């Protein structure tokens, strides 16, 4: 055996659970699981890694869609394997009975408990929906395909 430097797997996992605070600008007053939401954005928007929080600007609008999007089902606790911490929503995300006439191609996951702070952005190719359903089916929740992975 020999020593080797690494960012520990436990730290990556605990980052996903809010255990560590390397900064002093924010303190949590709650100890329960946060609520997360998924909002859709039109294809002409600029939602990317610099997006710090949810905004209604360039969010889709239309019949059946509520600004802010839908709540993400979160029954999965973060887990780790092979040096990678990961987390995936425990159910797909559905927008049912919607008419979204403006082409959209992006979903923003954000923390609606903590100031609507952003988590991740996913794109899926431009789409419109007429009086129908749009669903996002989640990948397998593991260290290889999980929706959020810190490796």
């Amino acid at each position, binding site marked *: 055996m020999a020593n080797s*430097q690494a960012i520990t797997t436990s730290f990556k996992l605990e980052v996903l659970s809010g255990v560590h605070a390397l900064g002093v600008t924010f303190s949590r007053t709650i100890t329960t699981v946060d609520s997360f939401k998924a909002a859709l954005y039109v294809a002409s928007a600029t939602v990317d890694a610099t997006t710090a929080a949810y905004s209604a600007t360039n969010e889709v609008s239309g019949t059946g869609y509520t600004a802010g999007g839908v709540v993400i089902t979160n029954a999965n606790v973060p887990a780790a394997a092979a040096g990678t911490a990961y987390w995936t929503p425990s159910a797909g995300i559905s927008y049912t*009975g919607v008419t979204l006439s403006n082409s959209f191609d992006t979903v923003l996951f954000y923390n609606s408990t903590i100031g609507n702070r952003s988590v*991740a952005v996913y794109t899926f*190719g431009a789409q419109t929906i007429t*009086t129908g*359903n749009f669903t996002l*089916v989640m990948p397998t929740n593991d260290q290889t*395909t999980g929706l959020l*992975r810190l*490796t």
Partner: protein
Amino acid sequence: MINGKPMLWCGERGHLAYEDLVYESGWEEGDSHIKFWERWMKDGEEVKSNAHVYIKRGIESVAVQEKM
């Protein structure tokens, strides 16, 4: 069924006879997703559509540690 004809609910347009609609569908595959879409057209106008996206693989953030 209305008057023995199968119908499709198309929101503001109400129930439309299925036989009057043209069905189209397709698959798209990107690096991280697969999308199935379907739509029903009447007289060249989309009257109903659905889309389902399977996220094949989420996003990975690689932790970088500088050597000491």
